[in-house]
């Protein structure tokens, strides 16, 4: 572990921060093992935290010190991998991107994401989401390639205005929070979901892509794009500002003939 040398004149400030009394908070965490349990039970943990701690920090404290059986998924700790999505005080959010201080509550209720099958405790099964994602062909479809049979390679050049059209939607980290917040996903198990539909739009607007008709045909399904009710909750919970609701409405414009 790297040691940080504190300059002598700053030592008092550093000591003040370290010695500051820690805040206490109650974490109420959902525990459910589908192989054993018939219903979810909630377990309370008293946690001490510093003002910079995130919900993920607290959950890892619980896992390391209080309850090693707690199951959760996490990786990067900086809202880049999309692994630690969960329901925090009733709202879908990334645990690593939510500071305990900012919740403004003495009780933090942690539940697994809605609209996903629970694997255990806070870990959910992403299979359906990734299946829907794959179904909509999340890659550039072209008849030609950068690599030809000869040794020469070529580039598919884009100007900044072409990139502008899709770059916001390319920020998706596949955390599943949008699908968790979607009211249609709650009842329609075959609905593609905001994540997959937004990615369909992302590739559709890419100037390098030639798969527009293929993707439009896939989403024009009984459980496709038309089942979105534009509740907008997907955009509200997206930690990367992707705005899936807007992408879906734009995508719908293609099928209604408003966009080319």
């Amino acid at each position, binding site marked *: 572990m790297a040691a940080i040398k504190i300059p002598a004149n700053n030592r008092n400030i550093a000591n003040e921060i370290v010695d500051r009394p820690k805040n206490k908070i109650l974490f109420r965490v959902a525990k459910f093992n589908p192989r054993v349990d018939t219903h979810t039970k909630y377990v309370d943990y008293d946690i001490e935290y510093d003002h910079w701690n995130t919900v993920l920090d607290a959950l890892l404290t619980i896992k390391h010190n209080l309850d090693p059986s707690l199951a959760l998924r996490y990786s990067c700790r900086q809202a880049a991998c999309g692994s630690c999505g969960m329901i925090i005080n009733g709202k879908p959010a990334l645990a690593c991107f939510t500071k305990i201080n900012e919740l403004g509550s003495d009780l933090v209720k942690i539940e697994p994401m809605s609209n996903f099958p629970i694997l255990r405790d806070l870990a959910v099964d992403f299979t359906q989401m990734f299946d829907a994602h794959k179904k909509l062909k999340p890659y550039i479809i072209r008849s030609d390639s950068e690599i030809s049979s000869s040794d020469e390679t070529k580039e598919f050049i884009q100007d900044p205005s072409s990139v502008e059209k899709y770059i916001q939607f390319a920020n998706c980290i596949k955390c599943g929070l949008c699908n968790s917040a979607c009211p*249609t996903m709650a*009842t*329609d*198990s*075959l*609905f593609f979901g905001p994540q997959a539909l937004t990615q369909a739009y992302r590739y559709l607007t890419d100037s390098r892509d030639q798969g527009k008709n293929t993707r439009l045909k896939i989403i*024009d*399904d*009984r*459980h*496709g794009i*038309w*089942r979105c009710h534009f509740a907008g909750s997907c955009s509200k919970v997206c930690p990367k500002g992707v705005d899936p609701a807007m992408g879906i409405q734009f995508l719908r414009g293609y*099928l*209604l003939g408003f966009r080319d």
Partner: protein
Amino acid sequence: MIRESTIMKIHYATALGSVALVVIHILFRFTQNFHDSLKFENVLINYSLLPYSILLELILILISIHGFNGLRIILLELNQGKNYETLVTYSCLASMIALITYGSRTILMASMGMI
């Protein structure tokens, strides 16, 4: 099978058409005192007017198509499965045709003075 986008275009068009025609239908209430306009005899007189009968027939068709397709969508979102979805789709279609037939019969009878 009709594409879902075609069905939804019909769904939106029937919604817009219904709103326009129902506005005309409501405005007809103001041709006389509102309470009087809803008296049985006065309602029957409306049917004797051919353009108004056509308007009512169109409202019946548009609202039936829109309403039963809306019901189909709600039921498809509530539950999934091939047999269930086929049953819901054809039931809604049959109900829509039945309602339009029954309503058209009523409009026709009223306009021909058979009621």
